[in-house]
């Protein structure tokens, strides 16, 4: 058994073809721009979206800790006393949502196999994402192994900050690694993600050395990593490793911002002020990197 927070069908940008992406919960990094804050913690979390609350009051009675109150006809939620029992989530309530549930590798594969024909006709398969999928090592490898037993094409999206031993265990069951490359400068890397990039770079070198295919995924975050040095770093890495087949630039979007508030988490103030990435000249960045490497560079 392991913990996931979403299984998404019909994903077309997490590897080739039509895919099912399984989002495993928990991540060792805390990238300031992360748009999946619900993926960080290894425990289940309650999210509350006040925009969707109709103040019907049905949650009030079911909370043992009086977190929900109706005051002057409006619903008020006090997260401080919450013990994450999830009893307050009512049928048809669109405001409260639980992130995270236990599921077995078999159940995941069974669900994913429902779309087998779509994978076959599109060259797709299953992708593990997160969070950091390797942060639940046994579970992650078990899913991959079972996927392979069922003849599925497998991808895994990783931040790379994991033990190389675990990575080694996955080699036989992964067709394509979607490897994040977030920042070239090690100091900035620590500042932006909470960890330095030594282990990440070592793992990237390792996957390349054993001959597995890699797509380099590079988030493009205005005012953070939109620097010439980093773009050159991307091109250098792409040139250096023969098994990097493609570079994908992922422009920043602010879809995740509201989720921080809904989960009761603080968001980085600088990120909040970015808005949409239209401010960066994405085409220009693309051309700049393309100029420096012969590998395909695309916008994801």
């Amino acid at each position: 058994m392991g913990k996931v927070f979403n299984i998404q069908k019909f994903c077309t940008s997490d590897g080739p073809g039509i895919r099912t992406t399984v989002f495993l919960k928990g991540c060792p990094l805390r990238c300031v721009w992360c748009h999946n804050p619900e993926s960080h913690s290894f425990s289940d979390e309650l999210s509350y979206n006040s925009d969707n609350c109709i103040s019907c009051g049905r949650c009030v009675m079911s909370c043992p800790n009086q977190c929900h109150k109706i005051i002057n006809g409006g619903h008020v939620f006090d997260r401080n006393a919450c013990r994450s029992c999830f009893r307050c989530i009512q049928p048809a309530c669109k405001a409260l949502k639980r992130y995270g549930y236990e599921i077995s590798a078999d159940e995941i594969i069974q669900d994913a196999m429902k779309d087998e024909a779509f994978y076959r006709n599109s060259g797709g398969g299953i992708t593990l994402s997160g969070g950091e999928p390797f942060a639940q090592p046994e579970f992650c490898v078990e899913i991959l192994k079972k996927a392979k037993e069922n003849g599925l094409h497998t991808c895994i999206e990783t931040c790379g900050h994991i033990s190389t031993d675990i990575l080694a265990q996955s080699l036989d069951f992964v067709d394509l690694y979607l490897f994040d490359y977030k920042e070239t400068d090690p100091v900035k890397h620590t500042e932006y993600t909470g960890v330095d990039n030594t282990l990440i770079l070592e793992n990237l070198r390792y996957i390349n050395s054993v001959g597995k295919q890699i797509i380099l995924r590079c988030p493009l975050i205005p005012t953070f990593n939109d620097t010439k040095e980093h773009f050159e770093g991307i091109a250098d890495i792409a040139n250096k490793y023969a098994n990097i087949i493609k570079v994908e630039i992922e422009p920043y979007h602010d879809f995740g911002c509201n989720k921080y508030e809904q989960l009761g988490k603080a968001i980085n103030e600088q990120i909040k002020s970015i808005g949409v990435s239209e401010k960066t000249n994405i085409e220009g960045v693309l051309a700049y990197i393309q100029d420096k490497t012969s590998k395909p560079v695309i916008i994801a």
Partner: protein
Amino acid sequence: MYFSFIRTLFGKIDMKIINEKLNYLKELVFESDNTACFIEREKFLNNLDTSVYNVESLNYHANILAGMLDNVSVPVDENDIFVGRVVEGVLDSFEGVPNRTLKSNGHMSPEYARLWQKGYKGILADIKKNAEQRSDEKSMVFYENARIVVEAIRRYSKRYADAARSKGLTRAADALERVPYEPAYDLYSALQGAWIVHLIASCYVGARDYAFGRLDQSLYPYYLKELANGTTKEEIEDILAGFFIKTNEICGRTSWNYKRKPILCNSSKQYVNIGGENPNELSFAILAAAKKVNMAQPQIVVLLDSGANEKFTDATFEALTVLTDKMNVYSYTSVKSFLLEKGLSEEIASDFTYSACCTFDLNHRNIREEYFLPSVQTFCNVIYEKDFDNINEIVEAYFDALRENLLEHLDLVQQKVSFTKNRKAFVLDALLIGDCTEKCRYPLNGGLTYHVYNVFFSGIATVADSLAAIDKLVFEEKRFTYREFIDIVKSNYQGNDDVLAFVTSLPKYGNDLSVDKYAAMVGEAFVSMVNSISLPKGKYAIPGFYSLDKDNRWAKDIPATPDGRLWGDPFSENQSPTYGADRNGITSLINSVSRLPLEKTATGGFNLTFSGAVKPEILKALVTTFFEKGGLHVGITVLSRRELEDAMKTPDKYKSLTVRLYGFSEYFINMPEWQQRAILNRTAY
């Protein structure tokens, strides 16, 4: 000739001139007045001289059509690529407009190949021979009617030839000196002849939804001849584009049920079928021409054979990403095997077409009737009135009631036909439909060997989700007795918000979950009910899951349903889940819809909505997988919410914006607001 004229001027065909013409003609369509009628037709019919047109005469309707064609003007625009237009105008009063003294039912695919090969001249000669052999009165009347109409069309075409010549449109003029009376002699003349006939049928006799059949097959000999004569493929695409743009000129841009243009072909859909077992080079050319025009008409229908050559399949999905809602893809394989199972011969089962409302025809061999079962109303009646102990009992009682309703309807249909009424409706159509000319009979009066009744079930998701709710709350969990629960539903969930919230939150059809079994169950019961009805030889009742606009139009009179739908709310559309109920991705949606016994149907539609551009290879994978799983039809809409909302605010900026509705494409800004909202509420992937 027009093209050689340009060629001599510029050495080769000047693409810019063609494109400019196309743009100009497009603009004319958008500038046309949606409140205008075909004014000359209306004036003529409203002032019929009864001393000339005697209602007792057996040639009454034929004479009227002839008189009208002699009377109306023959406008030509100097930019016309094909000629044939109708004068439009606004009347002081629109009472009784359009006049129905003359009208057809439309909804058919005339056999243009026959027209091209024989010309009306040859067809008339056949009728004469057959009528003389039969020598009964009905046959002689049929011949006399045909003669009057054919000669009138010949005179009308001749006048058009002169008008075209005076504007310097030599190619059109040369063609209309001969066609459609004489056989077509090249691709252009074939299409020009067909256009004159289509124009008269749609606008002067008057009716919606005449279709062009399997154009890539019927027109292919002329295509080959054209190539042999040195016409380039690009020039051929331009000819086709010129023809396609015509189909936008006659039907107005309003919706058929909203602010109707006062003409009988209001919002008629213009269908061109291609593909099947033998897609050819012309199939590709048609796709290319349609992309060039990219307007609401014509609707391109691709009949996709599972063994079709890969190149054609790829071209289809590439075109679909451009044409989106203006294109339909059907599983040729599935329909053909369904028809073979119905006992039709290989030849006929291979030669079907699709046109309006996702209904099929045995190409030009039949006319069709459509019947929408009152499926959701009947469901409410059944579950409200009687008590039940399990789901099977409900389904059985439900389909007994629906069967009774259908039999009653078919009985009515059989009785309503009369020779006189037929002559009115089909004075023109009979020349190109079924075996009418051989039998000297009108289509509904013995002229057809085949007759298709499309029987539609609407609201499949509403009914299925309702059964799921009853099963869970009453039979499985026993939270309520049957009567208690139904009384809550019946009261429109008054004072039972908790129950309403609960049933609303239950898993719904459309998410690839086990709850889909109810849709499968209802679907099976429906198709076996329809397929078990025995009709006289040559008559076929064909089941389909299709709602047209009944999901909204009927909704206001339909009380609450156990799935949480309240009194008056729309029920589900076509084969789709309730709007917004599908939340598990498009592949799950397709898996759910595939649980319906679609391979035992031949009509009905399934619309997919995307929120942004989709890659052709992804569309291809989705549709081919759906067809592998028995799917019948796919139509797509690509919409951006922002764009639609903006279009509601500033419609003038979005004149050409079309969206897919039910089984066809409509101009968004010309739809009623409730329908625009319904489109916005769809789940977009």
